[in-house]
């Protein structure tokens, strides 16, 4: 099907529609927003499938380079077949969206590929800048570039969207290069019920802290990782949800380089971990949207601002033992990432600045599933009875799920 718009534009248009529907007369139109969410899902799937295809290709190149450079490829690189972005059976409700294999998708969306390529190039630039900064002290948090692997290589792999730091399909243990066994964290925006475009919005490499990292979740992982914010039902179910759907960075033998970007949808804190350094609030604008959480070793990740040194060698051993539980404590939250989000979103829709912060909230809400959308339906009286008032607000919020967050956000 020819479409004049690429996936990214569709996503931003769709989000705008959803946002504006909240203020339309007569209340939220459930039907229309449901249909828009389908477009979001479709666009996102295509976008991701293309990103992975791109990544996979780059990874292949990288592999070849490295094998020439380094002798013992002590990492068995698993070339997992690039899977079509079909949905696992558990999402039968939404129906498998057969977008075809990566190749087909690419062939069919040249515009999207071009966009991807541009993004990649921009990201490369960005990373090179970061590398410069990294070489000079004052690491600006997530601005630190990948150490270890050559910047180019890191860059290539860093292109993998933070949100794409998915669990490897079928729980295959990661066998890549020394890589941060960084958990994508509970916040992983991607693996959520289909209408979850948050992932994509995180991914813009041009945003100030957009150091997305191809962090490979360790083999065992996912469900627990997602379970770490005690609350949100959507993330909890999602990693398994998407398991097997997408090839994970780990499958590409991702470098340990660079960073993992993780967004915690419950606390709205974005954390980046790069090379074992845990950064939060690293952005000039107070909060970095691209921080991830890592569990680079035994024990849970530490609290805000704590940096952990991390040895590449350690990773390999760790990653095998690691399980999702290592993800550890979620970063103390509450920090709104809106400012960084705004920058990012505006890259997508330059003319949406007044709503951008709302939209960023919307994105995070949406990342929690469709219910965030319908939270304003005049139906709250029919929701399950609210929790015991004795629970602390945060817990209450967390356990009530996305729709409550939506109400809070607005």
């Amino acid at each position, binding site marked *: 099907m020819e479409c004049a718009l690429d996936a990214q534009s569709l996503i931003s248009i769709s989000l705008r529609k959803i946002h504006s529907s909240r203020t339309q*007369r007569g209340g939220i139109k*459930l*039907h229309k927003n449901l*249909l828009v969410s389908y477009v979001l899902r*479709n*666009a996102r799937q295509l976008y991701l499938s293309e990103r992975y295809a791109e990544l996979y290709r780059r990874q292949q190149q990288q592999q070849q380079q490295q094998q020439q450079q380094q002798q013992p490829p002590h990492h068995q690189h698993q070339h997992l077949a690039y899977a079509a972005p079909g949905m696992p059976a558990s999402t039968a409700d939404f129906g498998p969206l*057969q977008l075809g294999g990566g190749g087909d998708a690419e062939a069919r969306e040249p515009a999207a590929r071009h966009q991807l390529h541009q993004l990649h190039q921009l990201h490369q630039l960005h990373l090179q800048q970061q590398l410069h900064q990294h070489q000079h002290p004052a690491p600006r948090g997530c601005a630190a570039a990948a150490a270890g692997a050559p910047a180019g290589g890191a860059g290539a792999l860093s292109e993998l969207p933070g949100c794409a730091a998915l669990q490897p399909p079928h729980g295959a243990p990661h066998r890549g290069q020394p890589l941060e066994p960084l958990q994508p964290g509970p916040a992983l925006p991607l693996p959520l019920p289909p209408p979850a475009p948050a992932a994509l919005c995180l991914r813009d490499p041009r945003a100030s802290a957009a150091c997305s990292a191809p962090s490979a979740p360790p083999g065992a992982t996912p469900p627990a990782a997602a379970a770490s914010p005690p609350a949100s039902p959507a993330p909890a179910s999602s990693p398994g949800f998407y398991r097997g759907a997408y090839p994970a960075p780990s499958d590409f033998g991702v470098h340990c380089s660079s960073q993992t970007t993780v967004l915690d949808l419950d606390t709205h804190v974005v954390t980046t971990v790069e090379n074992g350094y845990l950064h939060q609030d690293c952005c000039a604008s107070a909060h970095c949207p691209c921080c991830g959480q890592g569990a680079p070793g035994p024990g849970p990740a530490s609290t805000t601002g704590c940096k952990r040194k991390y040895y590449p060698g350690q990773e390999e051993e760790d990653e095998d033992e690691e399980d999702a539980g290592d993800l550890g404590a979620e970063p103390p939250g509450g920090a709104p990432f809106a400012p960084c989000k705004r920058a990012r979103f505006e890259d997508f829709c330059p003319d949406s600045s007044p709503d951008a912060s709302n939209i960023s909230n919307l994105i995070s809400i949406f990342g929690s599933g469709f219910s965030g959308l319908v939270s304003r*339906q005049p139906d709250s009286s029919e929701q399950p009875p609210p929790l015991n008032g004795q629970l602390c607000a945060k817990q209450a919020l967390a356990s009530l799920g996305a729709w409550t967050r939506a109400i809070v956000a607005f």
Partner: protein
Amino acid sequence: KLRHHSITTVTLLPDIISTVEFNHTGELLATGDKGGRVVIFQREQESKNQIHRRGEYNVYSTFQSHEPEFDYLKSLEIEEKINKIRWLPQQNAAYFLLSTNDKTVKLWKVSERDKRPEGYNLKDEEGRLRDPATITTLRVPVLRPMDLMVEATPRRVFANAHTYHINSISVNSDYETYMSADDLRINLWNFEITNQSFNIVDIKPANMEELTEVITAAEFHPHHCNTFVYSSSKGTIRLCDMRASALCDRHTKFFEEPEDPSNRSFFSEIISSISDVKFSHSGRYIMTRDYLTVKVWDLNMENRPIETYQVHDYLRSKLCSLYENDCIFDKFECVWNGSDSVIMTGSYNNFFRMFDRNTKRDVTLEASRENSKPRAILKPRKVCVGGKRRKDEISVDSLDFSKKILHTAWHPSENIIAVAATNNLYIFQDKVN
């Protein structure tokens, strides 16, 4: 037979028309608009002096059916737009119709008054009550003719039964009950009882995050008072039998056509959403409208429609821009003619289409003032999809997407159609031979 129609009336209404419906005899035609008003047209009686003149439709009654409301509890404004009007069959001198906005259904009685009682002697000329002591006789008032007055009074208000937006109402063939459908639920009402209704369909999932489809339209079977159908945003139709259980969540029949994978696109879900479903007068078929097609289904065959008609397939390559400008969400209705041989539906550029099911011929007509002289024959229109455009053709890119015909109605027995084009109501009638 498909013939070119001549126009009888074009009426400019004060607001955008949101629904059009003939009553069961075709004598009356009701329109609802975005401002909550109902305008009823009545067909002139044919007079012996003017046998060549078919009865024209003139305004018969106008009233404000719904007002905008504000739900303070939920901070929601409730639009007054009339979503649907359905007539009840006439059982006495008065006419009854149901009209609904997003939340409230009302039963209106429309009745005529052409006589007035006169001759009361209990009041003086100024209308003041006379002192009873001065009254010595009681005069019986006499009915005297007066100018015809048509009054509409709300007889029932069926409120507070829908959480979501009402999209359909349908009168049951028992004439005692009717149903109202919103995005997730269908309620069954008795006309006499306004403070309760039965919920007969509920597709709301336990967890709204799992919502995958909504109800888009619903209708009772024309003869079997236990049977109804409802369509979904996923392009499926369910037929339910109320005798089977109180809650008809489990359908008796399920109509779905498998998707054509070669047509897959970003917008597949949107264009497969059914915007209207209508039983044929015979009750044997149902017709559904989705964004690009009209389909006719045989009730006895669930796995695919028996007929599919392309309304404006040239829009398939434009879905992206139609998504951007929201046109892809337009909900077109569809109608049967009295004999179920022709179906009609609207399109853009004020075009509407008719399909003859027997001859398989179709025609595109336009509702426009410029092309519509009182006795003119409607000229068929054609959209040029590519290549060289012929003289009278219009190219896809020239179509005016702000001029859409969403609502049409067909007289129950004659070849008279009503077409709503934004604020204009066109009534076309067959040429008199």
